[in-house]
């Protein structure tokens, strides 16, 4: 009896070990690749941010917090942070708001609805770089379509990307156009998940369309709105492609953003340590948003 129990345990133990091995075998490619190309570079970024890195000479010089002290006094970097924040804090709410309105309109059934939806979503599948090249032409002050239309309407023509006051708003308009479709599709899916009986009950109780929107749609969309705001903000912090193509960060650094700034420092000025410190600041921004998300999602768990 005892020996039987013993051998059963041995068999189970072997099965368990085999299944641990199986599990580790299955996850090992992902773990190895992530360790090499994601985690190791992340740790290196932190490490390099305390060094002067000279890649060609293969030399690392420890400088302590000097990179961060320099950053804090670097007018161009501070401008890049401000531009990135202005960009994110404008594009995210505007895109989310417009997307929500569109999604509510799209919850009606009307002719060619799918076609319209596809049109709104099309910028999303288009390469940001190629789309930005097209907008660069549209924004051309002399021959671009936008100024031609303004001239047709007898409205004042704009310098668009050429003026340090208008360039950032021009980039923002482009990015709203680019991201609107994604947010709209997410909102449409969320709206479909709201049971129609809520609306039917509210209608019977005499609630008008506006009341139904404010009392039912808006609160039930709140988790989706949180997701969209967080996700878009994290992406907005990483903006790069359209800025490089549309303005290259100019004029006079008026559209320089954090990723473009660290790209320039690293790959044009070869200041890898300094660029790593800038990357750490970017990471802290993303981390901050993620922490906010964590607490928000916990709040919803309590609410339901």
């Amino acid at each position, binding site marked *: 009896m005892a020996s039987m129990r013993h051998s059963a345990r041995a068999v189970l133990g072997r099965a368990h070990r085999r299944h641990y091995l199986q*599990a580790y075998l299955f996850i090992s490619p992902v773990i190895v*690749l992530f360790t090499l190309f994601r985690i190791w570079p992340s740790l290196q970024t932190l490490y390099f941010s305390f060094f002067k890195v000279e890649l060609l000479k293969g030399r690392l010089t420890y400088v302590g917090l000097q990179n961060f002290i320099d950053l804090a006094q670097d007018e161009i970097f501070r401008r890049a942070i401000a531009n990135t924040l202005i960009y994110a804090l404008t594009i995210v709410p505007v895109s989310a708001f417009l997307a929500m309105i569109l999604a509510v309109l799209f919850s009606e059934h009307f002719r060619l609805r799918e076609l319209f939806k596809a049109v709104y979503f*099309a910028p999303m599948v288009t390469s940001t770089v190629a789309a930005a090249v097209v907008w660069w032409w*549209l924004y051309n002050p002399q021959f671009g379509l936008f100024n031609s239309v303004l001239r047709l309407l007898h409205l004042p023509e704009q310098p668009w990307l050429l003026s340090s006051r208008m360039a950032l708003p021009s980039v923002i308009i482009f990015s709203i156009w680019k991201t609107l479709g994604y947010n709209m599709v997410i909102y449409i*899916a969320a709206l479909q998940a709201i049971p129609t009986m809520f609306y039917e009950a509210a209608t019977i109780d005499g609630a008008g369309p506006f009341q139904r929107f404010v009392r039912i749609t808006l609160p039930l969309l709140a988790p989706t709105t949180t997701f969209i705001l967080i996700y878009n903000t994290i992406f907005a912090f990483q903006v790069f492609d359209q800025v490089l193509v549309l303005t290259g960060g100019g004029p006079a650094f008026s559209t320089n953003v954090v990723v473009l700034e660290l790209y320039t420092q*690293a790959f044009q000025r070869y200041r890898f340590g300094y660029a790593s410190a800038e*990357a750490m600041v970017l990471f802290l921004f993303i*981390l901050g948003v993620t922490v906010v998300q964590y607490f928000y999602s916990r709040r919803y768990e309590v609410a339901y």
Partner: protein
Amino acid sequence: MPRSAEAAAALPARGGARVQAALGSARRLPLYVVVGLGAVLMILPFYWMIVTAISPAPDIIAFPPKWIPSRITLEHFQEAWAKAPWLTYYKNSLVVATVSVGLSMLFGLFAGYAFAVYEFPLQNVLFLVILGTLMVPVQVTSVALYVFLSRIGWVDTYPGILAPNFASAFGVYMIRQAIKAVPMDLIDAARIDGAGEARIVATVVLPLIKPTIAAVAMLLFLSSWNDFLWPVIVINSESLRTLPVGIALFKDPYGFINYGPLMAGTVITVGPMLVAYAFSQRFMIRGIALTGLR
């Protein structure tokens, strides 16, 4: 207006379907105007890109703007085609996107299965570490990744372009969620029949989670196809440029007003993806909705 809309909305409850149909089209006029105007604004850049690419040079800078070309010309395409190796760009984009999606899905499928089905030491820690990499995008790690790859001689190579995208944390997460919804009984039944774990993944689990696999693969392909920051950092040779890098560098010498060939270049760049989108937009939009809402 609000009152009539309210009345129309309340009608179905009273069973006035015919009246509602009559009211419907009138009520929808503002809807059509708003959605239609917005759609015109959304599509305008695409329209103008194509019109510029096929218009004769004088039309392009004419005022008032020529909404319809006076004649259709392909000369800008000929010029654009002669000035850059587009086929090479296509080939590179295709190779990079295909390999990255293929490997991400293969590794993601097995890792997702392990995280969904097994229990093993450090499981949660490892899963959180994988998800944690989502918080450190290549925008943050690019500098250190470049330094690392230059040490192992991967700068300006295919593996170098692929390095951050050999595996996808998003893919592992989505696949794990999908496999968690697969009944364990099915997997156990296959085990009793003597199937090995790898075979169970391929023949039992994979067919059941096809929609997730298709949606994730499509999203990863799209993001690889349009990826720019990392390729532009790691690629030096023209022979390795992907389409976005190609079009960005194609633009630079066009500091003058030669917009016809430039727009022909953008049509060449985005054309195939837009055509693919036109044929599969329902699938693509559904895929985004599926993966966006966790």
